[in-house]
């Protein structure tokens, strides 16, 4: 434990306290919303207007400004859920449970968006809406994993047992994440190989890459905003019988 600075350890333990997390999120939300709107505005303007057209696909390629960030988020949120699941199982931290279950619907939505936008692009470019290649199939499995987490949590009456169950499901499902990422390299697929996240320099022109990275960052902030809002409600429901929530309600 000595490698991690003391103040980080202290902050980590502090965030475990629901009132601290609730108040912290209250302060963070307006900032996150502001940053998100600025990034989204610039990203959409730069991606849809400033970025040059592609030499092969013309303007159709611009769907990557939604498709790629959404697909990255679908993987990122699942990893967050798996880490939260591990923290919840090891440290029995209630906030980790809340983060896990609040993230699931957002992750499912991003996965759905990635699948739908990919399909819309696939019809004119590939000539088909859908193929059962390794990348598309593993991403579809990811959507089912998200839906599994949501329904498993809803199916178990006792929320402490439910949290434990979904934490284990999230950790088991995390093997799918490297499979999705490397599917285009391990097997022949119809889906193209990685453009940005390869060791070599990215195979995308800089004027096209920057709006993509801006959009990806905007999506990260959107996730933080949406997750915190769901988490705050979840915390209030779980802590409704505690002193600090009662005080909060009285002061309103």
């Amino acid at each position, binding site marked *: 434990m000595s490698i991690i600075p003391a103040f980080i350890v202290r902050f980590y333990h502090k965030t475990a306290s629901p009132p601290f997390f609730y108040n912290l999120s209250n302060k963070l939300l307006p900032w996150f919303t502001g940053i998100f709107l600025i990034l989204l505005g610039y990203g959409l303007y730069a991606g849809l207007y400033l970025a040059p*057209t592609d*030499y092969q696909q013309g303007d159709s390629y611009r769907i990557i400004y939604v498709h790629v960030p959404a697909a990255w988020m679908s993987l990122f949120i699942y990893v967050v859920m798996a880490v939260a699941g591990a923290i919840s199982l090891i440290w029995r931290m209630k906030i980790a449970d809340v983060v896990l279950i609040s993230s699931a619907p957002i992750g499912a939505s991003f996965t759905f968006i990635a699948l739908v936008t990919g399909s819309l692009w696939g019809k004119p470019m590939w000539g088909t809406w859908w193929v059962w290649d390794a990348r598309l199939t593993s991403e579809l499995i990811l959507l089912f994993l998200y839906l599994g987490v949501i329904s498993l949590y809803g199916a178990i009456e006792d929320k402490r047992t439910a949290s434990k169950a979904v934490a284990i499901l999230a950790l088991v499902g995390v093997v799918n994440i490297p499979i999705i990422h490397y599917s285009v390299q391990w097997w022949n697929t119809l889906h*193209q190989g990685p453009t940005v996240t390869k060791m070599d320099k990215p195979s995308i022109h800089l004027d096209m890459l920057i709006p993509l990275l801006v959009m990806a960052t905007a999506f990260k902030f959107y996730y933080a905003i949406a997750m915190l809002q769901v988490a705050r409600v979840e915390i209030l429901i779980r802590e409704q019988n505690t002193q600090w929530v009662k005080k909060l309600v009285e002061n309103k």
Partner: protein
Amino acid sequence: MTPVRRQRLILILLMVAGVGAAATFALKAFNENLMYFFSTTEVAEGKAPKDAKFRLGGMVVNGSIARPDRGIMVRFDLTDYNKQVTVEYSGILPDLFREGQGIVANGRLNEAGIFVAEEVLAKHDENYMPPEVAESLKKTEQLKSEK
């Protein structure tokens, strides 16, 4: 970290490693089935199924696209820069279909060893660039080959 927490951490790591190992073995076992298409070399060497439909992937050879009957049927060669296979197809080609483009065709081999496709899909590559950049890249490559 307390001993109890350490124990839980080890249990979780074991669980993830176990699931990972299981997934690896399963994917290794089904490796062939997970391949979306056969390469032209595999087909030329007779590794593809003879009487069944399968998918064939490769690059469209430059200058090989022809319409021999002046009709809708198009004939072209696919290559993986090792061996070539001739493909015949009657139907609508996707937007990205052109010489040098990666293609996945679904169909079967006939007696003459020609692949008769029922469906042709374009495989997009991972390169994105403005038309001017593509143009200048082409020019520099031409200069290089002329030297």
